[in-house]
């Protein structure tokens, strides 16, 4: 069981983690400041396994990987959004933060209790017993996520195997 933290469209990387905190890459240190300017209660209240539910274009802005690292460091299990910004999408996969694209993400209410199956993309909303379907990840992306990120993948495999 996980609690949903709702965010609007176009959450940018400066909102996820302001540039002035990007002097460290330690996940739990970044997590202390995650969303500090737009959602000051987040870092103090988020519980391991919680889920971020957002609108369109989540993670737009800079290429900073500090953003998905900060979210992962906070214990968030996955991010569900209507769409993701391109570099954030790649970075999240590469650091091993699961992300699901679901066009109906906006119908999930703040604080909803969710059961998410990352392998199938099924999102069960407990309150109304509804199940939403997220787009399945392409096979090569799944391979990277299942390895725990691109670094563990490349450590164990030849990158050509992805093709």
């Amino acid at each position, binding site marked *: 069981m996980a609690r949903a933290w709702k965010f609007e*469209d*176009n959450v*940018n990387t*400066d*909102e996820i983690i*302001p*540039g*002035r905190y*990007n*002097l*460290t*890459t330690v996940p739990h240190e970044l997590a202390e400041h995650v969303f500090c*300017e*737009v959602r000051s209660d987040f870092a103090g209240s988020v519980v391991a396994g919680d889920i971020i539910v957002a609108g*369109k*274009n989540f993670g*737009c*802005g*800079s*290429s*900073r*990987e*500090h953003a998905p690292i900060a979210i992962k460091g906070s214990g968030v299990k996955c991010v569900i959004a209507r*769409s*993701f*910004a*391109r*570099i954030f*999408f*790649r*970075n999240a996969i*590469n*650091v091993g933060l699961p992300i699901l694209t679901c066009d109906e993400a906006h119908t999930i209410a703040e604080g909803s209790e969710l059961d998410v199956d990352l392998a199938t993309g099924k999102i069960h909303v407990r309150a109304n017993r509804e199940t939403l379907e997220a787009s399945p990840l*392409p096979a*090569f992306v799944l391979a990277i996520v299942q390895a725990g*990120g*691109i*670094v*563990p993948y*490349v*450590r164990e495999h030849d*990158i*050509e195997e*992805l*093709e």
Partner: protein
Amino acid sequence: MGTLVEEIFSHRLERPVAAGDIVIAEVDSIMSHDNTTPLAIEAWQKIGKPIKYRDRIVIHFDHAYPAPNIAAAINQRRALDFIREQDIDNFFHRGICHQVMIEEGFVAPGRIIIGADSHTNTYGAFGCFAAGFGSTEIGVAWATGKTWFRIPETIHVRLSGSLALGVFAKDVMLETARVLGMDGATYAAVEYSGSLIESLPMHERIIFANMSTELGAKCGLIGVDDTTIEFLESQTQARGPFPRLRAREPSYQQEVAIDVTELEPQVACHPRVDRVKPLSELQGMAIDQVFIGTCTNARYEDLAIAARILEGKKVAKHTRVIITPASQRVLDQIIADGLVQVFHDAGCVVTSSGCGACIGRHGGVLAPGEKAFTTMNRNFVGRMGSPEAEIYLGSPAAAAATAIEGRIADPRKYLE
């Protein structure tokens, strides 16, 4: 046959590829800077494999250089230790990474360049594929020399007409952002063509590739023509032969046509790059700081137009005006041509080259409640310091006019 991005990858892989294909390709240059190199080193160390091609790694110090605090100094120390241990030749601290990449000849048609910076797109103005990647993938590419790409669909922006006095590529790009929106090109390539693009010099074409990032695009591309090749041969260290890559019988996901003839100077209003209004509607808004700089608008021609407006005038008494050239070479040029003296006489501060105030950590940080008018490419909350400050984006000419009046001002009256 295909869009420009399909042509570039087909050229490189020596087989036809199409949008949607997933390919593994060799990369020609792997770029990172002081902010992103430490994470790339961490990723590379975790992989535990040797550097594949030492000469493809290019590292720049530009974001917070010279280091403004101990944490930045430690990051640079880590990068320097790596550069020394791995004997990396391509190490630069002479301006904004994207400008130096072009000047030093790493950018040329048909190349595939990845960089740990979201404005790596800039190089696409030269008919190459260039995109911003995270540091982890940079570390992976150091170890493998390759990475995976999904060939993107393409949005075609056809620009026609001619620019009125006081209107620049920046204004056209802001108008494009207004039309397409901040997520209007997510995952896509944006290809710019048409009579306007054909007529523009490279320093103006670069704006479109550079700010494609602000549309969510994977890359921004312009086909190769005589202008591209003449610039590369005369202004950079790149050496040909340069393939004349252009779209051939392309199939686009979306087509947008904009005639710029009637376009006025534009401003992107805080805090969204697509919240764009004609400058005339914002005229008179008091501005605390003007910043002319960044990988978007701090090339010689950008500073020359600002100097033309500021020559013989004084900036407003209570407005700080900061000019940060894109590179040491640009700084050398504005010293040689007397533009630095023009800026000094007008009351501006000219800083050393680099990213400067754009990253909100040094060189012009904003206080709560302040408003800045800048030539940057993004105006997010907190970008230049205080999250309670506001950022407005426009052309170098508009910034210079605003500097004189201390309020958002129309550059056209200073250019007649």
